[in-house]
Structure formats: C-alpha cells, structure tokens
C-alpha cells in the first residue's frame, strides 16, 4: 500500500471516528450508504478488472513496447495512443517500460501519447462512466482527453 492510499485510510478513519462521536445515527446511515454505493458499482468494477486481465493476455506490455519501437513516429504515436486507450497498466509497470524504450532511443512522442491515454482515456471504464455520468459527458471527456494526449505528446517531442 503506497503512502497516499494509507493517508486516505487514515484520514477517513479519523473522520469516521469524529462523525461517530458527533452523531451515531447519521454515521450508521453514511456507512449503509457507502455499502449501497459499493454494491451498486461492484459488478461494473469487477467487469473492468477482468476485462483488463483479458487485454493483458492478448496485448502484453512487452508487445506494446515492441510495437512502439518498431514503427514510424506517426504510426507509433497514433498506435500508442490507441493502445493506451484500451489497456490499463499500473504505473509501476508502465513507467519502467516506457523508460527503457526512451533510453533505447525510441522517440518520446509515442511514449508520451501512450502514457497519457493509458490512465486518462478508458475503453474498459467507459460502461461504468456512462452509467454514472451519462453518455454525453463520457464521450466528450474521453474524446477530448484523447486528442489532448496526442497534442501533449507532440509538444513534448518538440521540447525534449
């Protein structure tokens, strides 16, 4: 557990204690509400998680690395952004992976496009986001994030 996750736990537990001291009934209700939220999202979250498992099997990170280094910059950038969109790789795997690529001389443009869409744009989280925020919100947010991820990558290519 990283420090920040731990911090969220500590803050929440303190908050919970204070809340309990102030009003038991409302606190119990808040906990029930939390449980309700959890139940409501559980199926969606589990499908996200198992979908990621499937994607990692068919598009393993090593193959993504190979793809990013084997193409022209333009193709690799668009491909990298698309691959980042469909996968969800934890930071502690993604950063070392991209680090090795950049060290090996691969252009930073596809690397950055991949890193940015990896976390910000999600095909697997799309159904849940749509359910919670509506179709328009989800489409606009993901669409714009994708375009701006490529813009960020291009500017970084110029700067570095």
């Amino acid at each position: 557990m990283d420090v920040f996750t731990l911090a969220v736990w500590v803050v929440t537990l303190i908050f919970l204690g204070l809340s309990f001291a102030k009003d038991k009934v409302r606190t119990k209700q808040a906990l029930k509400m939390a449980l309700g939220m959890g139940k409501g999202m559980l199926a969606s979250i589990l499908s996200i998680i198992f979908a990621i498992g499937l994607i990692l099997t068919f598009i393993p990170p090593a193959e993504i690395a190979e793809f990013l280094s084997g193409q022209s910059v333009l193709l690799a950038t668009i491909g990298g952004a698309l691959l980042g969109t469909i996968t969800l790789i934890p930071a502690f795997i993604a950063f070392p992976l991209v680090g090795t690529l950049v060290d090996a001389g691969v252009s930073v443009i596809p690397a950055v496009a991949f890193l940015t869409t990896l976390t910000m744009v999600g095909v697997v989280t799309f159904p849940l986001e749509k359910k919670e925020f509506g179709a328009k919100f989800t489409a606009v947010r993901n669409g714009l994030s994708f375009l701006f991820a490529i813009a960020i990558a291009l500017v970084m290519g110029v700067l570095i």
Partner: protein
Amino acid sequence: MTILKKIKENLFLVIVALAYMILFIINPTMGTNTVKNSGYYIKEMIMIMPVIFVLTALLDMWVPKEKIMRYLGKDAKAKGVFLSFVVGSISAGPIYAAFPMCIMLHKKGASIRNIIIILSSWAVIKVPMLLNEAKFLGPQFMAIRWVLTVIAIIIFSWISAKIIKDKDLPGEVLTQPGLHINRDACMGCTLCAKNYPEVFEMKNKKAITKSYEGLDLDQDKLENSINSCPVNAISFNEGNKI
C-alpha cells in the same frame, strides 16, 4: 423480458464473462493466466474502494451543499479550478475510484468543469505517479509532462463545460413538482423504502413512490431518504404544494 433487460443493462459484464468461458474452453492455461493478470487489479480495488465509498458517504453527510458550491461550483472560478487540481492530485487509486466522489460533488453543486479536472488529474497527475515517473523517466521529463498536462486539462475542461450541461448527467431532472426517482440510477438498495415506507416501496427491485396525495409528508424522514440514497436517485421539487 426481464432477463433480456438484465443482460442489456450489464452487457459489458456479460461479454467479459463469455470471453472468459470461451477462453477457458479453448485454452485453459491461458485462461488461468488471464485470471492471474487480474489479481493485481483486484488487490488494488480492495485496498482503495471501501475507503473511497466511506469517505464519499461521510463527506456527503457532513459537508453542506453551500460549501461545495462556494469552493467547487461555477462561481468559484480560478479558486475552484485550483482546488480541483489539488483534490485530484492527492488522491489514490485508479480513475474509477474518482467516480463516486465526483458524482457526489456534482450533486452538491460542483461544476462540470471542476469535476472533469478532478477526474483527469486523478487519472494522470497524482503525486505518487509523478514520483514514479521521475524515477524512471527523469525529473525533467516528468516536470514537462506535468506542466503540459495541467495546461491541457485546463483547456479541455473549459471546452467540455461548454458542451456538457448539468442536465446531461443522470439524476438532474427537476422540472415537475413533487418526488422523483431516477429509475436508471436506482440499484434497489431498499434504503428509502426502509427509511420512509409510507412513501417509497420496491417494485421489480427498483424503488418507486407510492401515491402520497393527501399524506402529510414528514420532512425529516423525506430528507433522510433523499440524503441516504447511495446513488442520489431521489429528488424532491417543492414547486407546488403536494
């Protein structure tokens, strides 16, 4: 009919489950590996989601609407943008962990723009992630990407807010006076029916309002039911006297 509807509602889950079944029939070893691949994400979820749900519910219960509106609402301007970046940056967990929090904030008056900033910064510029990035790609790389990402988020959150209106989000319709339940959002937790059985009841695993005409609504109980709904599907519009 109901089975078909269920499948339609959980289409993604059904597709994933089917894919696993096919994979296990064709190639059991690959299937087992795939389940193992998901292991890390399950751990990640268990570590963060319970606490996010509790925190969201507590904030929902104790932070008054006016406060959220003042700090994250439309009129919060630059202050709201800054605060949203702070909230997103000190967060933990994957992007879906931000969903319940953002829904709650929006219901309490946070603007669309600020919600998008929180979601996006939660996804890409979390502090723990930045540390990791600096370690493997160098502090300079990290700093430049951070600055560019912040600028990009400021711009596209502004564009998004021009396109998306509050009414595009579920659970925002409040035109007719009286009690409303957003049946798309309701997930059948039965809390409202337990809190105020005179007004709410369950039908087909979803809450509906009973006919409450002539009934003297107990404001406390009503407010309780509205506030305790985990998906904020209940709304009450006091336009006309009911």
